[in-house]
Structure formats: C-alpha cells, structure tokens
C-alpha cells in the first residue's frame, strides 16, 4: 500500500489516497467523523478515511506525514475527542440571553459542569432550536427583546418537559422572582451577577446525573 505525502509544485503537500489513488491537496482534505480516538484525513474522491487502516499502516502513514498535517491531526483529534465525549453523554442546556458576554461565559462554564451548551439570543430563536433538539434545562434571561424570559418560560412549560431557570439582575430580583415562580412556572431562579457555585448547584439539582469534568 502506498500512502504517501508528496510536495507539490507550489510547495503544498499532496496526499495520494491509499484506496483509490487519487491525489489531493492534503491541507484541504476533509477529516473523518468516525467514533475513533483520532481523526484522520478522508479522501475527497472515494471518501475513505485512514482510520480504517490497520494500526501498522496508520503508524507508517503518520511517520511520513509532514509537520503541518501532523499538527492539524493533533488539533482535530483533541477537538473531536471533546466533542464526542460531550455529544454522546451530556444532557443539553440551552442558554438564552441577548447579552453576548453572558452567552460566552455560559459556553465556557456549562460544558465544564458536564452539560452540552447551546445558546440563543432571544425567545423565538430558542423555541426554533428546541424544535430540533430538546434541552434538559433552559436558562433564560428575564428581560430580552422580542420575547422576554417569563413568556419563553410559559411556552417551554407548555410544550416540553425541560426545566426552566429564570435569570435576572439582583436589582430587579424580588419582583421577577415572584412572577417567575408564581405565574410562569419556572423551576429555579438565578441572580446576576452569576455566582458560579450557585449555577453549578442549580444545574446539578435539576439534572443530577450530569458528570462534572475535572
């Protein structure tokens, strides 16, 4: 079998597919989505990926790979591994907030608590996302344009089994907390600024089976 990288005329690396023999630009190769520990280039012609090869052949292939491709393999494999670990096990949390920073913080912190995290910028967008995949928990800001958190809470409670956490500023807490629980059926309440310990406790209370990642 000849799995070879070669340097093309323009100094880019080309990859000869071990299966069909078609030569393609290695830097532009697609990478496989197989449920293996590593990701490998996939032939753009026949679609075969290199992780289907035997261990010895794969080792020989990577021994010959140029540094740029090897570095990309490490990055792809790391990302892929994280994504697969989370995607196959973790329950989904949908974070709805019109504030970019809150969404960014949630996307950073929530996966570390053993959940997948999806974000939406407003109520209608959140409901559209819920049509695709139902989250276990919906965390929503109270005050948002288009559809505020209390209204979203009411929609979610009517149409799904997801738990709803209303999140709002401490400044307006008392009023919204009362309304969220009594009129809109929220399951929990979180105050801003976000206390991460409170967030962790809330998520674990609502979905106790999620595993916190070290």
């Amino acid at each position, binding site marked *: 079998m000849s799995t070879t990288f070669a340097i093309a005329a323009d100094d880019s690396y080309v990859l000869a597919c071990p299966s069909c023999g078609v030569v393609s630009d290695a830097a532009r190769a697609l990478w496989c989505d197989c449920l293996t520990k590593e990701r490998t280039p996939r032939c753009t012609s026949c679609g075969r990926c290199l992780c289907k090869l035997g261990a010895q052949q794969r080792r020989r292939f990577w021994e010959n790979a140029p540094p740029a491709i090897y570095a990309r393999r490490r990055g792809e494999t790391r990302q892929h591994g994280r994504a697969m670990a989370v995607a196959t096990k973790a329950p989904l949390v949908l974070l709805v907030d019109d*504030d*970019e*920073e*809150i969404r*960014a*913080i949630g996307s*950073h*912190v929530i996966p*570390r608590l053993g959940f997948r995290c999806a974000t939406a910028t407003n109520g209608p967008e959140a409901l559209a996302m819920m049509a695709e995949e139902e989250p276990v928990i919906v965390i929503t800001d109270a*005050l948002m344009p288009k559809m505020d958190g209390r209204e979203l809470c009411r929609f979610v409670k009517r149409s799904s089994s997801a738990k709803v956490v209303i999140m709002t*500023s401490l*400044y307006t807490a008392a009023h919204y907390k009362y309304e969220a629980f009594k009129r809109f059926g929220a399951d929990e309440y979180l105050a*801003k*600024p*976000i*206390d*991460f*310990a409170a967030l*962790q406790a809330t998520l674990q209370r609502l979905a106790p089976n999620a595993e916190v*990642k*070290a």
Partner: protein
Amino acid sequence: MSGSGWGALHALFVRRLHERLTVMTQSLNAFKAGDCNAAAEMEQQFHSLAGIAGTFGYPDITETAREGERRCGTGSIDGITTLLSDLRARAAVVSESKTTVIASTQTKMAPYWI
C-alpha cells in the same frame, strides 16, 4: 471571540465595556438634545453592565452601573455624567488588569474552571 478560556472572555468583557460606554455617552448627548428614548437606551446599557461586571469580578462597576440604571429609570439624568466619568476611569483600570481578578473574586468557584 478569538481564543478560549477566561483570557478571551475577559478580553470580550473589556471590548464590550468600552463599546457600552460609547453608546451611553451618545445616548446621554441625544437625551440632552431632546431625544426622550435615549434614557431607555442608557438604562438598558447600565442594566446589562451591572449584570455582567459582577460576574467578571468587578462589583464596583456593578454598583455604579446599578446607580445609573436607577437614575435613568426615574427619568432623571442628574449625575449621569459623573457616573460615566467614573466608569471610564474604572474601564481604563480594567483594560490593564489580568484575568486573575475573576479567580480571586469568585471565591466559591472551583479552581478547575480557570
């Protein structure tokens, strides 16, 4: 957002803080020129800032922003100029600060999150 982790989050916060201050200054000028809706825009910006600054470990900015939100909510802009000056001074300090602020202020937070 480029990069990942708290460093990138903090950089995002700093960038948005300066953007918010610019919007609030423009809204204040618009209000002074007779645009009544500008007070609501300022109130919204103060509200968002109050919520996010504490999360990043800046309770002093939260308190100042809350005071601004309260004043805008009452329809009065007395002292808003002073509050904005105060926030600008704090923003300059925040721009220089490191992300360790988050770790030190979120004392109950598990260390593996950093």
